[in-house]
């Protein structure tokens, strides 16, 4: 399977990565080579195998539903590039 430039541009948009046309072409070549290698996975017979999402052996981690402290507002906002009063400022999502 060969990766097309418009697929790379589509994935970059999904991931919100601004790329130039030259970037797209360079990543297309590199990702194509990586995917060609990764395609070996398709040869492994996994018809009888379940999926592993994590290997910690834990099934679930419960805790009591009780009130706990959290970051003070000033600490939470200390790294914000833009703030307005006690909020993070973002651009308008809808016109």
């Amino acid at each position, binding site marked *: 399977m060969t990766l097309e430039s418009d697929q790379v541009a589509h994935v970059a948009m999904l991931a919100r990565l601004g790329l130039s046309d030259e970037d797209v072409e360079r990543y297309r070549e590199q990702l194509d080579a990586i995917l060609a290698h990764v395609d070996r996975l398709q040869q492994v017979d996994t018809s009888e195998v379940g999926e592993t999402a994590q*290997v910690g052996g834990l099934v679930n981690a419960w805790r009591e539903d009780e009130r706990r402290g959290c970051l003070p507002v000033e600490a939470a906002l200390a*790294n914000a590039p833009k703030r307005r009063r006690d909020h993070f400022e973002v651009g308008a999502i809808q016109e």
Partner: protein
Amino acid sequence: MSSDTVAELGARLRRGETTPEELARAARSDLESLARLNPVLRYTDELAARQAGRAARLLAEAPETAGPLCGIPFAYKDVLCVEGVETSAGSRILQGFIPPYTGTALGRLLDAGAVPVAVTNCDEFAMGSSNENSAYGAVGNPWDGSRVPGGSSGGSAAVVAAGAVPFSLGTDTGGSIRQPASFCGVAGFKPTYGRVSRYGLIAFASSLDQIGPFARSVDDIARVYSAIAGHDPHDSTSSPEAVEPVDEQLGRGVEGLRLGVPHEYMAEGLEPGVRVAVETALAELEKLGASIEEVSLPSTEAALSTYYIIAPAECSANLARMDGVRFGLHVDRPSVTDTYLETRGRGFGPEVKRRIMLGTYALSSGYYDAYYRQAQKVRTLIADEFDRAFEKVDALVCPTSPIVAFPKGDRSDPLSMYLCDVLTLPVNLAGLPGISVPCGVSGGLPVGLQVIGPRMQDARVLRVAQAYERETIWHTRTAPAADVPGAAQ
């Protein structure tokens, strides 16, 4: 340059021959002399002074309660958060980020009285095998400055190898502690997944990431591991199982232990000098009373592909939070979408973008089953094969890396770089503990021996590594570092 261990420095502190302040100053000046290798991103002077003062008081007032790390200087990788000290994950996108809280592993070292003196360089967001992906410049290997120290925890490995600090912290997602330990000739340990809390570690691939130490002896590795291991309610993947006391295993040697050598790990592609060093180490372990037998891990060949689906998939999700809203770089544009595109386009380096795209692709509609779901199934096979091997043997021994440190710029093709991790990343996929200890040289450059154990048998891994180390001299060598040829950037 000092090449003292934690144990030696601790003894000098207790005899009153030196102070925590003096050790921190000496470490800082040793680190400064390594500037041409670029292993340090910033110094933590204020925190160091505060901690050194605390340690000095503790040693003076209640020496019996002071642990082995009290007053000992160390460095940590630029992905671990300490309140009030910049952490940038080797990335432009987090340049100037000041964490509002301290991570658990670092917090436990601070509680133990250890003195952080510097934050070390690493590959951006811990993605890389050579430390060439740092936004703040590559790091040189203290044995040969024109070569890489390995990655992604290259700076943390280099400062220990050069003797500037007796230990450091790194993180290991696919080999990022063990491979640089191997390349730099020091010990580096990745504990069992879930043994050390990931709270306060900037996430790369959450089901694989684990924090661990570098040091110049296995005993020191054990001291640091004992301080940072254990359950943490802040990390729901941290294991609630009690930590087995390492002391009960250390010093017991390997007599009667069955050690397995996965024949797939000794296959072609292994550099001849690495093969010789590792085979000599196996013979040494046999002489010490262990039985060595061949085992098979047939899915090894599929592990690289599995890893390079799962790790990028998790990274694409984790790094979505780098959006220029709550922290980090923000490139202002009239539309929200353009702000994201520009912020992330400028903030991330090429390898991080590559992995985000690979992961986004593997998780996208139409490709999820073929890539991500299939990778998760192969991950099951890989973990099961390790489990079966551990029914026959107590631990596995093998090379850490098929090669020694390579020249900077030698592996500009991404796939060739990924192949560096072929002997370490299966261990992360299965969540096992693994250590690399120095076991010889090839062409004048260090070779690492990897010891892998079953889940939660961290102490056994340390026991085997220590038994080997006690009988050999490789860990006693300190890199020339400051006078090393080719160090200039």
